[in-house]
């Protein structure tokens, strides 16, 4: 029993277990809830919660008529899932650590915050223009053989790789 507990809650999962668990969400959500897997549209809920009186057309559409719809609960669950995972591994409740980035880059907190905020800004705008994110396009869309998802995914990966190369050279100093 200890082995099984450690396998699920303590040790990092092997890639195949994570892939199967995440992939199963697509058919399960269709079968039981007739809903496509996707996260990024839910950020519209959060925008609308901050500015409920907005007159912007996109935010007044029926997608966001109820900001406490399934997307909100799904996102809240994902935060809880991350919380449980880190606690079961015995990680501290908050950390400034962001892997290689915070290990190499010696910036003040404000600069780090701005860097990650800008990354998020591009993710938010890019996901909306492209019509989805990694879960909606790359997993749900590719599994359903959508051409737009293939094109979006190619650009996600290509420009991710180019940007990481640039970060290595110009931010990490060639490491």
């Amino acid at each position, binding site marked *: 029993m200890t082995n099984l507990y450690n396998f699920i809650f303590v040790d990092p999962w092997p890639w195949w277990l994570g892939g199967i668990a995440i992939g199963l969400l697509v058919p399960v959500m269709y079968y039981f809830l007739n809903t496509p897997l996707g996260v990024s549209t839910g950020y519209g809920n959060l925008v609308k919660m901050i500015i409920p009186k907005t007159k912007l057309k996109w935010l007044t559409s029926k997608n966001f008529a109820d900001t406490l719809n399934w997307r909100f609960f799904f996102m809240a669950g994902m935060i809880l899932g991350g919380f449980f995972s880190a606690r079961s591994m015995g990680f501290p409740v908050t950390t400034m650590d962001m892997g290689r980035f915070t290990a190499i880059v010696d910036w003040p907190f404000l600069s780090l915050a701005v860097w990650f905020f800008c*990354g998020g800004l591009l*993710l938010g705008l*890019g996901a909306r223009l492209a019509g989805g*994110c990694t879960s*909606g396009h790359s997993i749900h869309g590719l599994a359903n053989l959508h051409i737009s998802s293939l094109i979006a995914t190619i650009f996600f990966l290509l420009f991710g790789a180019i940007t990481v190369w640039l970060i290595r050279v110009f931010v990490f100093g060639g490491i």
Partner: protein
Amino acid sequence: MSNKMVFLGLGVFFGFSLSRVGASNYDLIFAMFTGEDLTLAWVIITAIITAFLGMKLIGLIGGKGYKGQKITVNKKPLNQFTAPGGILFGIGWAISGACPGTVLAQVGEGKTLGLFTMLGMIAGTYIYALLVNKHPKLSS
């Protein structure tokens, strides 16, 4: 149990899985893009194959859900903004070491900088809402 509680539970499952397999780990995302460690690429490929087979299975049993309701898969539209959006998204993915789903797992894990990525995503979504108001063609 209401649908919303089901979605909350599925979200916990999703966030937990992303975190356990390392999808919310900056170093693993960085290493996927440099090619040093393709763990996350294999996770994505396995997820696509699993989802594809699951959808085939649903098709084989008549394309109906558990209550007999017809399952509709709407094609995501392809337009001239798919590629530019993908480019911005890819750059953001590399800068923040996160995507819209994994950043939620990061916030739950307690990564303070992930919270700024999430705030940035809210701002980016708002900018889209502003842009689409001026240029209705942007909406897909």
